[in-house]
């Protein structure tokens, strides 16, 4: 017990010696600390931004809806750049067939996407219009926060009604309630029947900058690009009851579509069926790589900071060789000398690490405010940074410290 207390007191002495030595060369100590500070700062910020990106992507995927497959009439981008001849067709009939024949499917939402211009007296906006059916609301989790969403009646009658997103509403109606107002879409007057519930924005992608109209209305009134047939669609959202049926259904849909369009064996399928699970995985991997690259680049600055520590500790050992000799003459063991310089390096690193951590937390908070992007600095990140700086200190302070401890007492004492 007293041995433990003594060893703690011993470290206390070393810290006191280190502080004296560091104060003696204050400017040099500050500059060296700065290197570690910048390193720790950039690593923590990189981790925080990476974490933020992952949070953001997860939110983005959640807004798509879960247990859903997206079917588009073009080959998987994994099989090379798409050629126009590879493009397939997709129709509402296909959607109905999927609903009937693939097990576990709860709803199919056919959609046509088109870019449109909206005009109200004195204002205008360009946005993406989705021609959809009421199933769109079910499958991708879209509801109206005010007014109402599309009904089968709207679709059947090809009614000129529109449900608009919050961003579009802000542009066209400012603070006024848009429900019941009239808006001209590509010069055709539409009645606003509802406001889409806000889904916020992720990674600069505004989920509220869109409008939804009945698929039939879009086809008759707003379509700008020619389709091959009267009930062709841009894509299908296929909602599944659960994740298991989604995984099985993905293959069923591919097989079924190949049969329906009589795609010969060996030719690549002109359809892509992607599931929200896959999308989540892929984007998760992408953001992980993004984070790894960020942290790797930031680590270089930490490495440079560590080399700075080693450099200055080597200088310090050389300058104080006589002091080392004296301390040895007065009874310092090799381990005492080694610990003295290790502690000195560690003190530099820990001070740098603490300042770097503080600045990183502040910077992350500012970033969050200014860029509207989550950059959480968790307790784990903070602990990691402390461990990081300590490791840097031991790693880069270790060599000079061991060199100091190996000096011969008499040669050290004789040096000028």
């Amino acid at each position, binding site marked *: 017990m007293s041995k433990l207390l*003594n060893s703690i*007191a011993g470290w*206390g002495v070393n810290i006191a010696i280190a502080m004296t030595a560091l104060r003696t060369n204050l400017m040099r100590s500050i500059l060296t600390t700065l290197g570690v500070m910048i390193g720790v700062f950039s690593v923590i910020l990189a981790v925080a931004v990476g974490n933020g990106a992952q949070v953001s992507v997860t939110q983005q995927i959640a807004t798509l809806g879960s247990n859903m497959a997206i079917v588009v009439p073009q080959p998987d981008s994994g099989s090379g750049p798409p050629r126009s001849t590879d493009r397939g067709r997709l129709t509402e009939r296909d959607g109905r067939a999927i609903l009937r024949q693939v097990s576990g499917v709860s709803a199919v939402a056919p959609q046509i996407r088109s870019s449109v211009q909206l005009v109200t007296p004195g204002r205008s906006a360009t946005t993406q219009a989705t021609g959809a059916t009421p199933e769109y609301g079910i499958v991708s989790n879209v509801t109206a926060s005010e007014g109402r969403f599309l009904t089968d009646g709207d679709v059947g009658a090809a009614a000129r009604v529109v449900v608009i997103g919050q961003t579009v509403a802000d542009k066209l109606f400012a603070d006024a309630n848009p429900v019941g107002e009239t808006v001209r879409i590509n010069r055709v007057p539409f009645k606003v029947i509802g406001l889409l519930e806000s889904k916020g924005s992720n990674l600069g992608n505004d989920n509220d900058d869109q409008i939804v109209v009945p698929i039939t209305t879009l086809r008759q009134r707003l379509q700008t690009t020619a389709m091959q047939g009267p009930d062709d669609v841009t894509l299908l959202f296929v909602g599944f009851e659960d994740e298991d049926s989604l995984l099985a259904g993905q293959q069923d849909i591919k097989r079924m579509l190949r049969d329906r369009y009589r795609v010969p064996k060996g030719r690549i399928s002109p359809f892509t069926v992607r599931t929200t699970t896959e999308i989540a995985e892929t984007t998760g991997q992408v953001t992980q790589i993004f984070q790894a690259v960020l942290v790797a680049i930031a680590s270089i600055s930490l490495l440079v900071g560590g080399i700075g520590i080693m450099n200055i500790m080597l200088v310090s050992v050389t300058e104080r060789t006589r002091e080392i000799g004296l*301390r040895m*003459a*007065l*009874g310092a063991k*090799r381990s*005492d000398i080694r610990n003295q310089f290790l502690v000195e390096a560690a003190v530099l690193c820990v001070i740098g690490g603490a300042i770097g951590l503080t600045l990183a937390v502040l910077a992350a908070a500012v970033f969050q405010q200014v860029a509207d992007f989550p950059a959480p600095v968790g307790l784990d990140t903070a602990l990691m940074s402390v461990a990081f700086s300590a490791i840097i200190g031991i790693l880069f302070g270790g060599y000079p410290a061991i060199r100091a401890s190996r000096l011969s007492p008499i040669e050290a*004492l004789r040096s000028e």
Partner: protein
Amino acid sequence: MTAPLLETHDLVKDYVIGGEVLHAVNGVSLSIKRGEFVAIMGASGSGKSTFMNMIGCLDVPTSGTLLLDGIDTKTLDSDALAEIRNRKIGFVFQQFNLLARTSALDNVAVPLIYAGLGYTERRERAQAKLEAMGLGNRLQNTPAKLSGGQQQRVAIARALVTDPLMLLADEPTGALDTQTSLDIMGIFQKLNDEGITLIVVTHEPDIAEYAERRIVFRDGRVIEDAAVKSRRRAVAG
């Protein structure tokens, strides 16, 4: 009859310089009893400092035996040698070798850090030694604020703080004026009277006359080893 404090048998220290072997110390056998006051003399290059460094356990002999307080130093590792330097030997250097920007009190307390003593005990013992050296009112002064004589007295207090068996002083008066040198020798004589063994390396014959035994080195060998006739007494300041 107790064993001598220090005994050497055919002690040799070689240095290789530019491919040639230099016998800095070339077969020295002598013994120093407890309580002796010995002056080691010789011109520069005579081997007296090398001998001093070996008996101070700062340097290891090339061959031969060194018994310190009955212990053969050949058998000791660097940690054990450090402990001997800490507990049994007090060093006094020509250039005082005090830590700059460090108070007299903290300077004197340094050996006690390595002896593993706690903060309070370190301070108390360091203060007592400084007071014994007449520096009770200079505890917080840094070396820059002390005269040469005061600095050397701080160094002597530091050498004494672990209550060692012997004091090794390498040209302790080399950087001091005549009067201050006398003061320091007076302190040494007083300490010797109190029972501590003193070994002083010097090239000044006057200084050697304060010791009771004089050993003269030349070319790595002892050429004279005799009691000092007409020993001088200094009045301790």
